């Protein structure tokens, strides 16, 4: 079932699945025509079996609760750090995919019906983007990007 907004009872799983679906549906897979069936472009865990690159992984990297929303309130504000990692065959492909993912998320924030804010994910921030390159010409080039979203738990 496609997730259309993040709800309090399942906020972490909803966030991961929502972002995965957004990337899957809006970022162009460079292998769209040739990727074998059963091989996915966007995953919610690091691959354990052989995969065909490029891929994008979306995983959670921790949650903080910076504040409660009032002494008499059960509501809290939650910061969710989400790692979106681009795994590509070369540096150019990695950077193009990063640009595409970042710009899509940035521009999707204020979309009236289906944007990040309409889906209850506020305060979009890119915290860091670190390159991790494996040795050799054929080594996988990846970019580990940490994004932060603010969610109101009520």
């Amino acid at each position, binding site marked *: 079932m496609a997730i259309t907004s993040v709800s309090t009872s399942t906020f972490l799983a909803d966030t991961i699945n929502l972002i995965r679906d957004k990337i899957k549906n809006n970022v162009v897979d460079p292998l769209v025509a040739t990727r074998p069936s059963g091989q996915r472009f966007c995953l919610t865990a*690091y*691959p354990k079996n052989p995969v065909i*690159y490029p891929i994008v992984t979306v995983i959670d*990297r*921790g949650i903080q609760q910076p504040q409660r929303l009032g002494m008499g309130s059960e509501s809290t504000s939650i910061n969710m750090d989400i790692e979106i*990692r681009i*795994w590509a065959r070369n540096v150019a492909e990695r950077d193009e995919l990063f640009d595409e993912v970042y710009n899509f998320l940035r521009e999707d924030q204020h979309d009236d019906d289906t944007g990040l804010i309409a889906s209850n994910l506020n305060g979009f921030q890119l915290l860091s983007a*670190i390159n*991790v390159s*494996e040795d050799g010409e054929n080594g*996988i080039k*990846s970019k*580990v990007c940490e994004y932060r979203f603010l969610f109101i738990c009520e």
Partner: protein
Amino acid sequence: MPAIVIQGVAATSAFLAKTSHDILVSTEKAITEAGLFIKAEVVESIAGNRAEPKSVDTGRFKNSIATTKPSPMTAKVETNVDYADILEYGSSSRQPRHHFTNTAERNQIKVKDFVTAKVKKAI
């Protein structure tokens, strides 16, 4: 003609200058100590004494962890080992171990409280 005389201006000003100096010195000391504490925690994490898997084979990575002070109010815990980013973030054939990021997450509040306590003591 009535007049208001304010006494002790020089003493107050000297007291404030001394206190602000003491706060700066204490903060700097606290940041140095916090850096050393985080370094020790990263080493413990690499040695397998925290939640992360052990990353010791020859001990080169564990022994490379160092604290530096790029500026008086900053402490940096770092390594110069070239395979550190693969251990930290993982690769296509290796799961990430997050020794640095997890240590930072685990100790964020501890470090903040430690520095705050040192500053309060100086006041």
